[in-house]
């Protein structure tokens, strides 16, 4: 078979196995199993409570790994807590040296780690060798730099504390690096929970931490399954949870951590569009598909799993794609000439198969290469393989177009116009990534801006770099990994560490029927009027038909405010949704409106101050101070409106990567009772300055300041629908907003219980929640009441990769 003349006849590739001996020896040396890594030492393996680890390509059992329980998590969190004070207090340079050492040691063991990852996960040695492990090293190098620069680049910030981190099985070591490197750079210590299918490279990394001299307890590893993860996520001792995995589990963790005052970042599922315009380099796009959906067996959260192809080129595209699929090679992932290795486990094969069958049942047309029947069926013993699979004639409503398959399965659809491409692309609950193929700058950039996704690759796909933020829109999660924005996930404003808890809120007075004599606006203190709500640029009566008395500091009724309910929120969100022109405006345009608004507030400063005094009992001085601060704050965000627009990164030669700060579009804002005018302005101004439209519930006890404010909005050219004001019970309205799927972000500044409720209910569409987490904030303070924290939370970062060259 391997005589030269025979080979000359067929010109086949032949086998090209990577030598796995050293890794196999290492695994054999751990024949008694692996424990956890806590406080700088490996715990004794507990064979009675262990799970087996298999090589998915062969079905061989390759290791036994101890399953972590609540006690193990306790011990790990305790070790991380002990290590935190010393580690976070190290100089940036010292921490940088540790991260640099980790990078160097990862490089030193690069081949070992690549082979181990391949054996554990089933992904090809080509990918682990050329992609996973080099990116791991790159991530530690990059973050060695952030460790060095933390204090200079993030003044006024402190490490969030002990971090719980839960990583998935599809890129085990790379996801570890994405989690661990920024945490350590920020000065945090970590407890990492590895994935049950793929715990081995994390264990090898623990050994590397020892070898590289990382202080004990800075990195702790607990192996285990969902229960272990749950114990970690819910642990009181962690200040931050970072998770990468499925949207379903992300939702569970969002609910579980609600109200626990934990920072949370979620990197979840996707059904990312791969858009091919008629002016694309089709051959390039075909190869892009290979890198999009046949990378890592399609087990990639940002896989371009939904190809949208312009109708005029669809036939040619599909012909070329099928020809390309014929040349893909599925098989032993340790073979250096394999494109698609093994799927991680039999259970995943079953899941893929079920989704493929559902797609066929829904009427889509399946196509596989001619050699597909020769791919082993996917039983454990035969190895978990699945052939590359193409679906055409996929309807947008089909599960193939809507649900993540997490396998080598591409769904394709056609579109007629660029506009329709964007509609189809955004017709998804997810928003992780998008790949756009066009040789025309106008077409490509237009699509890149309009697609709702955290990462956009123009004429490329699945590119990653430590300097470029990665993370999703919509139900693909929130938070970014990589770059400056990724560092902020592990830092908090230093003042929050000493902030006092909020005092319990007093309920609003019992509602009464809406008064008939509700003359709006008016001069002076309209003691006998009911202030209206403000929706879509118009004053609106509450749907409930009830209002509630607004009391002064002495408990006297000074006016009545509309008692908003869920329908008012619904109407307000609809109005905000329609006001898209605001988001499309230039920052300069928004700045002009904000300056005008500040100007008009100052013109009526005395009137606002009087009203504040009447409501809150504040002294004239103090009220005047609040109004002046509010005007200054509007100017502050007017100043930022055309400046906080993002950054340019150059992760590769001939590549511009843009980190664009994009608006959330529709936001919900729940205001506190303290500083009723200033807090309202402090929250609304950055949100609208950055281009969002907001549904805001002003202070329930002192709503008048905000309600008077709508007159300013009217007179300052703020378009209708940009700021929508609904008065009423904060938490009742916040509940509706948190559950509203068309709100992308919710800022909640009320009670501890309210924050917990909002965080819990936000799990529905996984909107990003920024809350006071039960901590008091001094709205007059320049650090607490305004600044980078507000701006950062007012945007979501879209990373656009733009390769160029001729």
């Amino acid at each position, binding site marked *: 078979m391997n005589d030269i003349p025979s080979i000359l006849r067929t010109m086949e590739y032949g086998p090209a196995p990577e030598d796995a001996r050293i890794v196999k020896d290492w695994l054999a040396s751990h024949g008694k199993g692996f424990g956890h890594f806590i406080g700088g030492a490996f715990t004794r393996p507990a064979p009675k409570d262990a799970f087996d680890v298999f090589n998915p390509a062969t079905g061989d059992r390759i290791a036994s790994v101890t399953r972590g329980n609540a006690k193990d998590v306790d011990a790990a969190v305790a070790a991380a807590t002990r290590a935190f004070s010393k580690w976070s207090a190290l100089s940036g340079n010292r921490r940088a040296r540790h991260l640099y050492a980790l990078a160097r040691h990862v490089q030193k063991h690069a081949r070992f780690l690549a082979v181990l990852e391949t054996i554990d996960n089933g992904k090809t040695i080509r990918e682990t060798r050329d992609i996973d492990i080099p990116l791991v090293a790159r991530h530690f190098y990059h973050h060695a730099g952030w460790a060095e620069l933390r204090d200079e680049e993030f003044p006024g910030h402190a490490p969030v504390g002990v971090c719980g981190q839960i990583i998935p099985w599809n890129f085990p070591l790379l996801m570890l690096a994405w989690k661990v490197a920024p945490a350590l750079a920020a000065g945090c210590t970590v407890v990492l929970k590895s994935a049950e299918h793929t715990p081995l490279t994390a264990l090898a990394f623990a050994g590397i931490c020892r070898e590289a001299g990382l202080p004990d307890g800075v990195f702790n590893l607990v192996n285990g399954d969902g229960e272990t993860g749950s114990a970690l996520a819910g642990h009181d001792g962690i200040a931050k949870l970072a998770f990468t995995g499925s949207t379903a589990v992300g939702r569970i963790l969002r609910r579980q951590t609600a109200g626990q005052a934990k920072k949370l970042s979620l990197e979840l599922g996707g059904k990312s569009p791969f858009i091919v315009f008629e002016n694309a380099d089709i051959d390039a796009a075909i190869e892009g598909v290979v890198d999009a959906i046949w990378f890592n067996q399609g087990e990639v959260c940002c896989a371009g799993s939904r190809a949208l192809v312009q109708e005029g080129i669809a036939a040619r595209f599909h012909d070329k794609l099928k020809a390309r699929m014929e040349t893909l090679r599925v098989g032993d992932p340790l073979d250096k*000439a394999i494109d698609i290795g093994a799927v991680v486990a039999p259970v995943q094969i079953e899941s893929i198969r079920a989704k493929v069958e559902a797609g066929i049942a829904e009427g889509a047309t399946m196509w596989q290469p001619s050699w597909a029947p020769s791919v082993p069926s996917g039983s454990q013993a035969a190895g978990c393989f699945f052939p590359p699979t193409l679906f055409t004639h996929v309807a947008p409503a089909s599960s193939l177009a809507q649900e993540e398959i997490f396998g080598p399965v591409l769904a394709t659809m056609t579109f007629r116009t660029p506009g329709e491409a964007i509609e189809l692309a955004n017709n998804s609950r997810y928003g992780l990534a998008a790949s756009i193929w066009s040789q025309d700058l106008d077409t490509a950039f237009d699509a890149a801006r309009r697609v709702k996704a955290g990462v956009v690759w123009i004429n490329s796909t699945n590119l990653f770099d430590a300097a470029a933020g990665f993370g999703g829109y919509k139900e693909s999660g929130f938070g970014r990994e990589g770059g400056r924005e990724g560092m902020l996930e592990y830092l908090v404003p230093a003042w929050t560490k000493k902030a006092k808890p909020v005092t319990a809120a007093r309920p609003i007075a019992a509602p009464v029927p809406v008064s008939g004599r509700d003359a709006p606006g008016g001069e002076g203190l309209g003691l006998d009027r009911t202030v209206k709500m403000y929706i879509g640029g118009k004053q609106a009566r509450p749907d409930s038909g009830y209002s509630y008395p607004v009391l002064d500091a002495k408990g006297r009724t000074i006016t009545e405010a509309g008692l908003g309910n869920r329908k008012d929120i619904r109407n307000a969100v609809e109005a905000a949704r329609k006001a898209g022109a605001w988001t499309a405006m230039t920052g300069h345009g928004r700045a002009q409106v904000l300056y005008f608004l500040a100007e008009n507030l100052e013109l009526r400063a005395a009137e606002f101050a009087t009203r504040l005094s009447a409501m809150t009992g504040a002294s004239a001085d103090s009220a005047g101070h609040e109004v002046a601060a509010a005007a200054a704050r509007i100017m502050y965000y007017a100043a930022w409106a055309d400046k906080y627009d993002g950054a340019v990164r150059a992760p590769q030669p001939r590549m511009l990567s843009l980190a664009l700060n994009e608006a959330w579009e529709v936001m919900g804002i729940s205001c506190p009772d303290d500083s009723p005018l200033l807090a309202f302005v402090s929250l609304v101004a950055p949100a609208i300055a950055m281009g969002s439209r907001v549904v805001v519930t002003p202070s329930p006890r002192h709503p008048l300041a905000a309600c008077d404010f709508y007159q300013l909005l009217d007179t300052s050219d703020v378009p209708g629908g940009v700021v929508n004001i609904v008065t009423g019970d904060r938490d009742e309205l916040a509940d509706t907003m948190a559950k509203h799927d068309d709100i992308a972000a919710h800022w909640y500044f009320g009670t501890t219980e309210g924050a917990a409720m909002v965080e819990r209910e936000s799990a529905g569409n996984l909107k990003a929640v920024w809350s006071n987490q039960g901590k008091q904030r001094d709205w007059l303070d320049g650090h607490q009441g305004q600044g980078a924290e507000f701006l950062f939370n007012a945007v979501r970062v879209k990373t656009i990769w733009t390769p160029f060259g001729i």
Partner: protein
Amino acid sequence: MKAATEKQAGSDRQIAPRHDLVPVRPDRPRNDGTDLRPAWFENTTVNLSAAERRAATLATRRTVKKAWQAAWLVRAIECIDLTTLAGDDTPGRVERLCAKARWPLRADLAEALGLSGYGLHTGAVCVYPSMVPDAVRALEGTGISVASVATGFPAGLTPLSTRLAEIRYAVEQGADEIDIVIHRAQVLTGDWPALYDELRRMREACGQAHMKAILATGELKTLTNVYRASMVAMMAGADFIKTSTGMEAVNATLPVSLVMVRAIRDYLGFTGLHVGFKPAGGIRAAKDAIAWLILMKEELGADWLRPDLFRIGASSLLGDIERQIEHYVTGRYSSADRHGMA
């Protein structure tokens, strides 16, 4: 290529039939070209970054080891246009080159590979027109094609009449293949009708000899130019398209080759006609030859892993291949002086 049997008539050295290992396809029609059809290429632009990415990962996605590597290197030998194109070429130098083309691999190595009697030889020798008679004489009866550059090689800026006369001269002297150069200005200015017409006339001048059109891609600069020039050359009836003269500042590169073979694939799709590909210039290492073979197999299929559709223009490549093959046979790293020079 011209059937080997024509030349075997007067042979004093029996060439073993090679049909079982390199099946010929007599039923495959020669590319006679088409009308100039700008619609087939005018809207095509090539994305450089994507082409580079594909080119860079070709040899990381595929590899051949051990016996497969040795066999692939043997196939590379069969695809070499062993070339000398220097001002100091002499009949003696050409004779020596031809001898190397006939016996490219040491006999003991060929035997160790099980290829005794296989009649392994390079695809062709490639010389200047005035050296064609020497090459023809040296290769008489061997079945090895003689290729001649022509048309004012390498710049191609002599008058068209001169360039055509040069082709006719080389053909008359017995050249089987003519490596012509295109007029780069016609590409750089997008004058496709002019390019097409000149190439048509060159193809006519070639007659039965096969025309290999050198695009001099290092001077066309953009991959889009390379794609369009490739298409026009094929429409004009090129039997092969070839990257470089070896004299440009940038010679054969994988991204350029990728674009050219994709043009060949598109042309096949449009016409059903097979056109060959020849990278030339700067290919010196055995592993480069493997990379190009991988490119051909991946983008065009196994049909393009044979000398009738694939050639490598090279002078020093063979030496490295011999050393690698000796390493395969003996397990020892070899040195250049253990193999006969060209």
